[in-house]
């Protein structure tokens, strides 16, 4: 069984890497068709995304909101739910952070910052928690409801920013009153990357331990693997669903707080900049593993960071970077279907009777009835 373990580990590392390489090749073909030299393009991507410390910071800045927003899809996925309400949770998180930040603006900065983070997490958590509750108690499809809640969140943002929360001096771009400069999150010393990156990394590590190393996470994975078995085992599936959804939403909400408190200083329409949708991509490439999500965020951040140089140096259209991102997503999703299919990664048959490859679902551990 030892070979079995390393082969499976190797498989789950090799397939995504191979998929990314394959999509690079496809993208190179695309570039060649459009009239750019693929190898120069690869070189530029490398240079703009990872090549130097200054450009790597560009990648990290773009990766920071993706990590938090990816967890909004990755956590419920372990429970078998496909939630794509990241954008909405991020937006309501931003609104919550601004509301609280303006409300207690006279308190010491640290208190205000912690307060904003908590407000954003609660706001985002309730938003996605509601999706989980609808799913469990009313059997509303969580994908559709979370998608539709995105539109409601954006409409709510536009309404609040254009009406009740509007700063009258923001004439041509409606925004809320700004958060006082002392209460803003600073950059990590020595870099221009804001603290959102650290929040993201910490959240990914915590999420990993929560899911993989605690009984709570085990219960969630069990419910995700086989909901009937989980019920028979006496697991509180409803509470688990709502709790996981709440945690997922609070991660995206925290991303909203970081956008408000580290970047914009106010809540306005720029909050809704597509980080939520980027997060979905990250979660799927990472196969809903929170640690992998942190790495993949850096990869996607790098792709986004290279968008500029493709336009400036190679004269490629502005949508090129989206083509690249789309290719990566498609090839990675395709590669999911190869798990357990490639003979190299299959365990050696000890006898002539080859056992069937175990399903790749995360809930494969036996259910222990206590």
């Amino acid at each position, binding site marked *: 069984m030892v070979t079995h373990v390393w082969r499976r580990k190797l498989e789950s590392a090799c397939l995504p890497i191979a998929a990314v390489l394959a999509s690079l090749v496809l993208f190179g073909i695309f570039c060649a068709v459009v009239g750019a030299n693929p*190898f120069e393009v690869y070189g530029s991507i490398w*240079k703009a995304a990872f090549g130097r410390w200054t450009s790597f910071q*560009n990648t990290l800045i*773009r990766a920071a909101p993706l990590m938090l927003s990816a967890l909004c899809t990755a956590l419920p996925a372990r429970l078998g739910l496909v939630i794509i309400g990241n954008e909405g949770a991020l937006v309501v998180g931003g609104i919550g952070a601004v509301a609280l930040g303006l409300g207690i603006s006279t308190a010491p900065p640290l208190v205000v910052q912690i307060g904003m983070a908590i407000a954003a997490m609660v706001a985002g958590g309730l938003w996605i928690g509601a999706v989980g509750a609808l799913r469990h108690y009313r059997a509303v499809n969580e994908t559709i409801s979370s998608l539709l809640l995105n539109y409601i969140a954006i409409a709510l943002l536009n309404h609040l920013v254009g009406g009740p929360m509007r700063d009258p001096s923001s004439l041509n771009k409606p925004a809320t009153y700004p958060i006082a400069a002392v209460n803003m999150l600073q950059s990590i010393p020595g870099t221009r990357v804001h603290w959102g990156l650290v929040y993201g990394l910490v959240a990914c590590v915590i999420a990993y331990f929560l899911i993989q190393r605690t009984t709570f996470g085990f219960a969630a994975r069990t419910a995700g693997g086989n909901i009937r078995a989980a019920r028979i085992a006496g697991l509180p599936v409803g509470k688990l669903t709502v709790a996981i959804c709440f945690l997922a939403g609070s991660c995206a909400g925290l991303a909203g707080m970081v956008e408000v408190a580290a970047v914009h200083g106010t809540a*306005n329409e*720029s909050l809704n900049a597509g980080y939520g949708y980027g997060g979905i991509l990250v979660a799927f490439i990472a196969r809903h593993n929170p640690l992998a999500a942190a790495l993949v965020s850096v990869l996607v951040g790098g792709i986004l960071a290279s968008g500029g140089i493709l336009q400036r140096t190679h004269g490629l259209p502005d949508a090129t970077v989206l083509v690249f991102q789309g290719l990566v997503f498609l090839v990675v999703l395709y590669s999911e279907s190869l798990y357990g299919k490639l003979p190299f990664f299959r365990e050696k048959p000890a006898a002539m009777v080859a056992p069937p490859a175990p399903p790749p679902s995360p809930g494969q551990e036996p259910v222990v009835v206590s």
Partner: protein
Amino acid sequence: MSNQRFLGLSRRQVIRGLLATTAFGVTAKLGTGCSRSASEGASGADGSDSITLGFIYVGPKDDYGYNQAHAEGAAGIAAKYNWLTIVEEANVPETTSVEESMRSMIDLDGAVAVFPTSFGYFDPHILKLAEEYPEVQFFHCGGLYQDGVHPKNVGSYYGYIDEAQYVSGIVAAMTSKTGKLGFIAAKPIPQVLRNINSFTLGARSVKPETTTQVIFTGNWAEPVKEAEAANSMADQGIDVLTCHVDSPKVVMETAERRGIFSTGYHANQAELAAKGYLTGAEWDWTTVYSKYAEDIRAGKTLTDGSIPHVVRGGIKEGFCKLSDYGPAVSAEAKQAADAALAQFQDGSLVIYKGEVKDNTGKVVVTSAEELKQQDPKLEQMNYLVEGVIGSVS
């Protein structure tokens, strides 16, 4: 040793292939690495007589609208001056992305001035970068510069395009058979209200009974709502449509399909509505950018005050213009519009001259007042003039 095959290849072949690819990749990377430093050296060597300007757009460069107008301006100066290099990025959101784009243009491409054209780039992104790069000049379209508050290397430019809207209004009113015009607008903010009001005042200057129905879609790019609004206006008997959204494409196409007239905005949309396009209020950013490019080349800077921090202009200064008249415009309408244009050229026409009432009957400009285009009161407009059907809240 098993004879398992990986996609029909033996393991040895696979390993050999992977090694070859890696080696190729490494050498390819080295190759581009060298060419990069070479090109940097080149731009550094002739940096004394060539300047690089960076342009950033929030949407695509071919949107028939706001971004296209700026991209045409940038392309205009790139073609005009051989000592000028421009670098451009489109579809850059108003987030940290624009900061990184500006930074790359400055650090990697050696841009001496950047033109981030979207309104939302200003605060906090441009202000932050301007402090970080005091030797680079930042020109922002939209105008929020406050002396003493903002960094000295930030400038602002914008045009009084409502003058062109006024003339469009004249053409629209003279062409309309029903006397009902339609205006599809993004948000009830001062810049937009000013265009709606000027368009209506222009229309009512030739036909005082003309009305303008306004619909706010709520956001800058809402193609579905714009099409719905255009259709419902056509159903109401409105026969000339115009708009103030980022891309007028949908409105123009819908008007053409419904067989009604349209006047354009931002850029020239004549090719989208060959029959019904009357004229349009267009930006002419080439004028503005040429002036800036020549000033920068001459060594002038915002910091020492030799380039003004706030640059404004209308038809007279060449900041905006009218599209060529379409086939449906009568000789009479052309005459009236040309007369108004001539008055804007010599500065004798003031749009907001008393007495102007809003559409609730309140006097907003008294008969003693004459608000010239530079008047700060106009920048805070929060009303719709008499003759506009709609409300700002």
